[in-house]
């Protein structure tokens, strides 16, 4: 295909393959633990980190990643404090984070092309160094999930049981949130902050409609994440529309189609871990 001869496109495709896989793997846990709103709040609250990093001039991934850790800790603390319902607290953090990012951006240079890049991504300007960073993040996340994946799934089903067995459930929860934050921050170049939650949630939610077990569900989620990325970039080239949005629309279309066709139609039943069968 003539499209593939273009350097920008090749890099973009490679980036979305990596990001799609990363978000798919992490997304399984987000969907199992019903963390979609939380993830949304994190993406909004990470936005100022991205802006700050850009203004200060440090590496975007590093800067927003560090800021993201602060965000995760802050939201976790707020949720544990609030008496009955954390969604209002999460809403406050979401608003504060985003407003802060907008204020910083307008103070620094007014609204520029950068704003849309941060909000909805700009995958065609991905640099080779970005690819390397994303690959490293993917390897790190894979390594972490290889070692504590089973415990995380257990904790999603039966937190009390996990605690009773002596596992540090709270620290595992926090670890997962950090992994989600890593995935989100890595997705910013491809799809921006507002749409990042889609790549994390949609492929995994779609996989859940087809699969009843964690293993296959993860594989399908990864596949769908990568497919959405590739198809999205290709559509974006052909139709001359924003790539990030095209990627997300493809991922959502997979979900919508599966909602209508798949056997496990939109049920709240969670997949069963291998051991329990």
């Amino acid at each position, binding site marked *: 295909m003539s499209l593939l001869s273009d350097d920008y496109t090749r890099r973009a495709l490679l980036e979305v393959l990596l990001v799609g896989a990363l978000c798919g793997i992490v997304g399984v846990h987000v*969907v199992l633990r*019903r*963390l*979609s*709103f939380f*993830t*949304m709040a994190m993406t909004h609250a990470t936005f100022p980190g991205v802006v700050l990093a850009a203004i200060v001039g440090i590496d975007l991934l590093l800067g927003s990643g560090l800021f993201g850790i602060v965000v995760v800790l802050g939201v976790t603390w707020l949720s544990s404090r609030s008496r009955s*319902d954390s*969604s*209002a*607290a*999460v*809403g*406050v953090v*979401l*608003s*504060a984070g*985003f*407003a*802060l990012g*907008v*204020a910083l*951006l*307008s*103070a620094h240079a*007014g*609204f*520029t*092309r950068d*704003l*849309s890049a941060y*909000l*909805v991504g700009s995958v065609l300007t991905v640099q080779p160094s970005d690819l390397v960073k994303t690959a490293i993040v993917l390897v790190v996340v894979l390594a972490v999930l290889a070692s504590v994946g089973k415990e995380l799934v257990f904790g999603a089903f039966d937190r009390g049981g996990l605690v009773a067995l002596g596992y540090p459930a709270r620290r595992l929860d926090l670890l997962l949130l950090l992994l989600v934050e890593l995935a989100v921050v890595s997705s910013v170049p491809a799809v921006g902050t*507002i*749409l990042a*939650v*889609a790549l994390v*949630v*949609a492929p995994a*939610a779609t996989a859940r409609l087809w699969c009843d077990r964690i293993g296959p569900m993860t594989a399908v989620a990864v596949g769908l994440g990568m497919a959405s990325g590739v198809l999205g970039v290709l559509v974006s080239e052909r139709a*001359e*529309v*924003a790539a*990030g*949005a*095209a990627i*997300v*629309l493809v991922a*959502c*279309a997979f*979900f*919508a189609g599966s909602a209508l066709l798949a056997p496990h139609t*939109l*049920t*709240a039943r969670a997949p069963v871990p291998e051991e329990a069968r």
Partner: protein
Amino acid sequence: MSLLVEPFASPFMARALAVALLLGVVGGVVSVFVVLRRLAFVSDTLTHTVFPGVVVGFLVAGTNGIVWGALAFAVLSVVLLTVLSTHARITEDASLAILLTGFFSVGVILVSRRPSYTADLTAFLFGRILTVDMRQIVVTAILGAVALLTLAALRKELVFRAFDPAGAAARGYPVVALDLALNLVVALVVVAAVRAVGTVLVIALLVVPGAAARLLSDRLAAIVVLAAAIGALGGWLGLAASYQASIEHGLRLASGATVVLALVALYGVAAAVGTVRSSARRRGRVTP
């Protein structure tokens, strides 16, 4: 004190203040119900699903078409949302996230085909409160009035349903219709705010005042009044801060953002006061 009054001498700032106060009061009152019914995520979803309507309205009929496009998509979203949530077997939060981003990306795609992509995106997402005209103030006032009148008319049923949905259903109240009505009221606030603060920042108006007021009082009537006051105060302080930053320090801070930050700061104050209140109450309750 003059710091808070001086900025609004010029007509455009005065109009911006009028809109901010209107939205603050209306958003504040609605936010009480958003907090009581835990509709923060649903409201966030609505702000994102309205966005493509904003773009479509603009493409079809220019800036005056924005509100109509937003209104059409708001109604569509509310119906979709209410239908989705009554089919209780869906894991709600994942579906909402996907609905939200799917609609939003449609909007982004529509905007991205225009040469003025970034400027348009910015205006739709963050509003341009400093360029509101009289017509917009009137439209905002009308939409806000409809929202408040609906809440006033249905308030006892909405509170009953929020407190005890099973009991309300047992009494024969149409719970789904009540939920639809409240979602529509939220959508009206989003549409009313779209020109002034944009779709992304309106979520703050729909959550923060109510959350802050809840920290300050246990009585519903007081909470509503406090939320309206906090909403209005946030608007006022935010606009004044943006103006001062620009005039005194040459710092351009987007007004929509400063309004939200002012609201969050007020929430922080409310949280501090609330903590003092509850520890004082605990100390005072010395029962033998």
